Structures are given as structure tokens and as C-alpha cells.
């Protein structure tokens, strides 16, 4: 554009008076034409771009659903964007970033119950419950709640955050996931990038990146407000993972497994982000 301008300057300067007079006359005629010309160009561009934006939006809004796999329920391009965005923000993740903790008196007396998916079966018996840790060589470690309680207890009073938007300061206690790994010599398992957890009836399940599972504040909780966890909160053992939204905090853990691929995840199959990290 600048170049064009220079050229036109030159031409003006070198033109003869005759030419200039002619040009001047033309200019006076074109003031309105200039206005019209600029209006025409800019408004055409404006409407063309607006239409393109509208078409683009329509395309995105009606874009096909992703094929059902580990994740489902989202538009294909939006799922792509969710994954890419999470990958970007995972660059800022660190197990040194601890969740803020609170004093006991700040903790809610009535812990909010938001869902009973996976723990609503009538016949469930806490006495016969065992935690099954499935090693990749096919071995299964079966633990009773007492095996788990024998490990060092970690208390955590933190602000539990639900994907819906509410949050509540809650008091939980249990064994750190990383302590459990160390005690039962599962170090070879956590070289795999993902951990999967499921309820005993298999109706609720979460997939976690191993890094987040090993966060020093990730606990398998068996107490809330200094008492054993109630049934609606996932007795006898549930996951508390403060670096994730509540949807990842699986109640009543039945099995734990390790994987190279992303394990299935209940809410990721329903349009939510797989990572759901905070």
C-alpha cells in the first residue's frame, strides 16, 4: 500500500499541467464516487466476512459428534479443542502445586451429596468388599479396609470443586495413593501414564493421568469429619483427588488398574473433558 502511494506521488509530480488540470477536474467529480467506492468495498467486505462467520458458526454448531471411544458426546472439533487446550495447560501442572488447606472448623458439617451413580445397588455389603488392584501381569492384589487403614493416615481439609460450579470445604482422611503404591510395591505399575478406577458394580469409572493420581494430596479416603465414610459418600473407600473436579472423585472404589491407554471415564463419555484438571 505504501509503495502504491509513492508511485502515485511521483506520477503527480511529473505530470504536465494539462494532465493535472484534467485530473483535478476528475477529482472534483469523484468525491462522492470515492465515498461510494469506499462504502461499497468496506460494506461488501463486512457482509462477506459476516456471512463467512455465520457459515463457520453453523458448521461448528452442527458439526458431527465424535465417534464413541474413550470419550464421546462432544462435537468432533470441540473435543479436539478440549484435548489440545488441556495439553497446553498441563504444561503448567506440577505436583508441587498444593491445594489450599483449611482448619477443621471451616469444614462443612453436612457434606453435599450430588450423585449415587455406581453406588446405588441394594445388595452391597461393606463386609465382603475388597479393593482389587489389578497389576498388568495379571496379578490382583486384594485388600481389606483394615489393610488400608493400617497405612499412615493423611487428613485433608480442602475446597472440593464440582464441575457444576459449586464448591465446599470438606474434611477427608485416608491413605495417600502414593503411600499405597509404595507400601504394596506397585512402583513398576506407575510407570504407565494412566490409572483407572471403577466402582464394584462397574457402573461408574474414572481415568486419571498417573501424575495427578500421585499428587501428594490425592488420597483414598475412608473417613469424613473424623467418622467412617457414609454409604452415600462411597463407603468404605473413595477417591479424593483435589487437582480434579468432583466428577473424578470416584466413590466406593472397587478396582484400580494401570494402563498405557486412557481408561474409560464415565463423564468423558458424556461430553466432558477427559482431563478435568484444576
Amino acid at each position, binding site marked *: *500500500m505504501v509503495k*502504491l*502511494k509513492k508511485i*502515485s*506521488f511521483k506520477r*503527480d*509530480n511529473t505530470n504536465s499541467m494539462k494532465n*493535472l*488540470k484534467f485530473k*483535478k477536474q476528475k*477529482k*472534483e467529480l469523484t*468525491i462522492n464516487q*470515492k*465515498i461510494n467506492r*469506499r*462504502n461499497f468495498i*468496506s*460494506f461488501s467486505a*463486512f457482509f462477506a*466476512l*459476516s456471512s463467512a*462467520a455465520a457459515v463457520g*458458526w453453523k458448521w461448528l454448531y452442527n458439526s458431527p459428534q465424535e465417534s464413541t471411544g474413550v470419550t464421546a*458426546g*462432544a*462435537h468432533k472439533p*470441540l*473435543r479436539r*479443542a*478440549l484435548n489440545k*487446550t488441556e495439553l497446553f*495447560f498441563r504444561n*503448567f*501442572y*506440577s505436583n508441587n*502445586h*498444593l*491445594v*489450599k488447606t483449611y482448619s477443621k472448623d471451616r469444614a462443612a458439617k453436612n457434606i453435599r451429596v450430588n450423585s449415587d451413580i455406581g453406588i446405588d445397588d441394594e445388595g452391597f455389603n461393606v463386609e465382603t468388599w475388597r479393593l482389587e488392584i489389578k497389576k498388568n501381569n495379571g496379578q490382583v492384589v486384594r485388600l481389606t479396609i483394615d489393610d488400608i487403614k493400617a497405612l499412615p493416615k493423611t487428613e485433608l481439609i480442602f*475446597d472440593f*470443586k*464440582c*464441575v*457444576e*460450579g*459449586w*464448591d465446599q470445604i470438606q474434611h477427608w482422611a485416608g491413605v495417600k495413593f502414593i503411600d499405597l503404591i509404595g507400601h504394596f510395591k506397585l512402583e513398576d505399575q506407575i510407570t504407565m501414564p494412566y490409572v483407572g478406577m471403577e466402582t464394584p458394580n462397574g457402573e461408574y469409572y474414572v481415568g486419571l493421568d498417573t501424575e495427578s493420581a500421585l499428587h501428594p494430596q490425592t488420597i483414598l479416603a475412608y473417613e469424613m469429619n473424623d467418622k467412617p465414610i457414609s454409604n452415600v459418600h462411597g463407603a468404605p473407600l473413595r477417591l479424593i483427588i*483435589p*487437582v480434579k473436579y468432583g466428577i473424578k472423585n470416584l466413590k466406593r472404589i472397587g478396582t484400580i488398574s494401570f494402563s498405557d491407554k486412557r481408561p474409560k471415564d464415565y*463423564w468423558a463419555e*458424556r*461430553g*466432558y*473433558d477427559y482431563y478435568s*484438571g*484444576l
Partner: protein
Amino acid sequence: MKVIKEKHSFLMRWTHWVNFPILTIMIWSGMLIYWANDAYNITIFGFTFIAFFPEWFYKFLNIPHHLAEGMAFHFLFMWFFTINGILYVFYTLFSGQWKELMPKKNSFKEAWLVLLHDLHIRRTLPPQNKYNAAQRIAYTAIIFMGFGSVVTGLAIYKPVQFYWLCWLCGGYNFARILHFTLTMGYVFFFMIHIFQVLMAGWNNFRSVISGFELVEQQPLITPEKQPGSNSPADGKIEEN
């Protein structure tokens, strides 16, 4: 006679019109998210004036039960919103346009006179350049609001990884309230903005699309006086 007077640069117009649909999508997807836990209202002395939002409003806009979709859209368009905002701010800083935009010492006093004028209480406007005092305040404030939305949004999005940001925003809950309030601010801004644009008329509106305004020029500099040299309008046409 009428003369073309340049008003809004291409980049200003571009970012303005790009921002419009993006912000609309951000507010809409934000509502899809907010619906899942619509806890906010204005209650004074136990009396609730407004509950955000009434049921008919949700139904009218088809808001309920789209939380996952809302998050997916919100976390995609946040990029465009931020990039577009950064583009505008950098352009404004480096082009020197900020001098026309930022409130001056007397702007706050003058803005009052502008308000009185707009309300037809005062007849004259204080002298102004591109923007009057009230516009300077409003258009600068909206940029800070945009910045605030990005910062509070980030604080809510990753409250653990960006714990310091969350702390700066007054904690998770307060950051959410700020994020919500800023959005209400945009809606309020939008309504005033539309009203003012309608009042200002076509010449003003066109300038945000075509970039120029038409002004009546006194015959002080007639085209005859400057043959040979380029008329101002001429050079400027080629810039665009």
C-alpha cells in the same frame, strides 16, 4: 462541502467486529455453564430483587442441561477472545491510539458534562477529539474489563495450578463472582452502546465499518488552493 475524514483504523474495526460474535458466544456458553449452579442473586435485607436467572429466561434461550457443551465452547472461544484482545491492546499501544483513548486528567469531570448533554439537560458538548470524555472512560474501562475476564476466568479454570492468580482474585468464589459480574457489565455496556450508536446516527456507525466520517469543511482550504499536491482525501484513500 463534504470531506472524508479518517476515523477508525482497519485494525480497530477488525478487532471490534471480531470481538462482537466471540463475546456473544462466550456469554452464551458461559450461561450454559452457569445454569448448572445458578446461585447468584441480588438480595438486600432479605428481599431478593433479581435471581440470575428466571426460569422463563433459561427456557427461552434453551440454556438448561448443556453444561458439557457450554464448557467445550467456552474453552475454545476463550482463545479467540484473548488473542483478539491482545491484538487490539498491542495495536492501540504501539500506534499511539491510546492517547485518543485513555481518560485524561479532566475526563472524569468532563464525562459528567457529556452525560448531561446526552440526557438533553445541557446543550453543548465539551470540545473533543476522536472520543469524548465519557467515551474515553467507557472504552478504556471495557478493555480493563476484558482483561479482568481473562484473569478471573483463568483463576477459576485452573485454581490449583494458578493458585496465586486465584488468590489475587480474592479466592475461587470471589473470582467466580467477579467473572459473572464482568459479564453482566458487558451486557450493560452493550445496551448503552447500542442506544448511543443509534442516537449518533449513520455517519458514526459507518465509520466503524468504512473507517471514515464525512465532515462539512469550511472553504478555508479549497481544492483549488492545492493543485499539484495530493489532497488529504487522495492520500488517505490509498492507505485503505
